[in-house]
């Protein structure tokens, strides 16, 4: 039997979750908490196996509560149930010690499975969120041999600082057309398509401004 503590500042949500869990033979909602402080007290009193934790709560957020909860109850598993779908929150939650992350809109269908998975020692992320997480992992910098001329490197450094073609032309005492041509050459040589890529390249090359 998986003993679950439900932490959410909305009583209706807690009630709904309790109802849902009540229908499962292998899990039991042992308690409910409406705030972080309450959750810590309940966790100490009830020693649940798993906490279903909302991130956004008035006062202390679920994210901030996690280290304290886990310190007091090292065996406790935390499954986040949140409205926030930004990868940033997912990453932060896992960094703080959560074992699973569930979106509220998917709760009805996924919560039971996620609880089982996490209680069994696994991890759970809403599939779409997992994909997004991978998307936003910073790329490893690809440092290439620098095929640029000195002038092109100057232009690149200025592009990386956010200058327009006009400004670059003025600063390097060249025509706007020439500045545009330099930029086109740089992009072609490096096989890059956007300014953002240019900046990344400049940075990898340790050019000023990169």
């Amino acid at each position, binding site marked *: 039997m998986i003993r679950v503590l439900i932490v*959410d*500042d*909305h009583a*209706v*949500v807690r*009630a*709904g*979750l309790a*109802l*849902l869990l*009540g*229908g499962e033979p292998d899990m039991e909602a042992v308690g409910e908490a409406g705030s972080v402080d309450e959750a810590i007290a309940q966790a100490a009193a009830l020693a649940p196996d798993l906490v279903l934790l909302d991130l*956004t709560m008035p006062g202390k957020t679920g994210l901030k509560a996690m280290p304290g909860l886990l310190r007091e109850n090292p065996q406790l598993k935390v499954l986040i149930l949140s*409205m*926030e*779908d*930004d*990868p*940033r*929150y997912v990453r932060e939650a896992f960094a703080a010690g959560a074992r699973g992350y569930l979106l*509220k*809109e*998917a*709760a*009805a*269908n996924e919560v039971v499975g996620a609880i089982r998975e996490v209680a069994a020692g696994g991890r759970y992320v809403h599939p779409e969120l997992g994909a*997004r997480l991978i*998307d*936003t992992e910073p790329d490893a910098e690809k440092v290439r041999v620098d095929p640029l001329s000195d002038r092109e490197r100057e232009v690149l450094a200025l592009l*990386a*600082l*956010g*200058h*327009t*073609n*006009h*400004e670059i032309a003025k600063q390097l005492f060249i025509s706007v057309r020439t500045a*545009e041509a330099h930029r086109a050459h740089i992009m072609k040589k490096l096989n890059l*398509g*956007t*300014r*953002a*890529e240019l*900046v*990344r390249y400049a*940075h990898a090359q340790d050019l000023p*401004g*990169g």
Partner: protein
Amino acid sequence: MPVKLADRSVPFTVLGVGVAFALVALPAPDRNDGEIAGAAVLGVSLVALSFCWRRIPRTTQLVVPLGYLALAALLRLSDGGAASGFGGLYFLPILWLALSGDRRELLIGLVALTLVEIVPIIAIGAPRYPVDSWRPGVVRVSVATIIGFTIQQLLAETRARARDATRWSQRLESLNEVGNALATETKLQPLLALVAARLRELLGARVVAVLLPDGPHKLRFAAVAGADGHALVGTKVSRDGTRSGLALDRSRSERAASGPGEPPIDADFGGRASLWVPLVVRDRSIGVISVHDKVDGDGPDFSDDDLRLAETFASRAAVAVDLSERVARDSLQRVVEAQEIERQRLARELHDQTGQTLTSIMLGLKAVEERLPDDPTRGAVAALGQQVASAMQDVRRIALELRPKVLDDYGLVSALERLTRTFSARTGIPVDLEARLSRDERLPAEIETALYRIVQEGLTNIAKHADPTRASVLVTPKNGSVVLVVEDNGNGFDPAAAHEEGLGIDGMRERVALLEGRLTIESGKEAGTTLVVEVPVN
């Protein structure tokens, strides 16, 4: 400076003629009654003429003295060369012409006089009157000329002084009036209109305009005095390549003299002699006063004095413009802040309240669904649950558009990551985001909000108009400021064209101005668009 009989000094002129007449005509003992009567009639008619003098065209005016000389010549010829009748008073027209202050006309008179003296001699031989009797005539002519000039100089000087005094008191009055208006008038428009009107009066200019910058390439007529200029108020002229723009960019006054070689300066005014004086506040030019065509004054050109006066007015106007800009900026700032707070509140409400309520409904439906036997009702409940889930997604999307929570919690970079990803997913346009700030680096909240909104607006424009194959967003620090670049390789547009207005660029510019930053747009047909924002971070 010459004073002309044709101008407003008629009473002085009359007095001068009278005095000269009395001095020269009265002490002559050898004059007969006919001469004196003739002189009196002439004097009276001249005085009478003076009163309606201004209404007579100049060429007609010349007929009087020249006609008189011709008459004198005829008389002399008719009486066989004797100096009789009022022929002896031929000094009068010379006095008249001397007083008129026009040297050319005086010369014509003297030539005419010489002819009057010489023609009878040639025609009928030497005069029969005693040899020494020609002297009084010459003396009278000389004295009359000298007196005429002297009176005219005195009149000119008196008038010039009176005019100077009037001008100074006018200047003081006008400056005082402008100063008072500055303290009491809260609206910019009437104040600038007052500055333009007073300056025009004082400089005797045909038209005076106050121009304020409108975007980077245009100047807007904020106030115009003279030459039906009020119709121009609100219209725009180019800033690039105009003298107004030059004065503004250089923060230095410009002056153009009249003259045949000078082309018309401003298509709107056709002005020749002109001044352009920048409105400078704290070493920053915020507008320009342009003055065209000196129509009332000492010469066709504006003097150093005029320029100084215009600069004094410009400094007053600058204070007013600066103040009103700051007031406008303050209220804009309050509106922007209030709007953000309201958006934040709505987003939270949607997210926390509506979102949670929908969650509970969905959970409830799920519980109901599981307790139902496997029949159509169960399917219907499941479908309801799906609808609630999609309503939750809508709520999240709206909350995100209003104001992403991640912007408050984790800052600009995380928010932009989210924004660009959502944008790409929705539009299919890949957006390459490069933030050279670390993910957790926080900028002042108002800068984060402004930059976020600008990227939002910029991406919206790209999706609507640019049709690019890719776009990029760059955020990078640069000596004490942060630079944002939003760029695409799409259609582009002509930034100088009026097209800008539909793109919300004015709104972006205002936001950037609130942060004392600058916004640059570089674009061209088929050349993509680069939007650069640089904001100082203190």
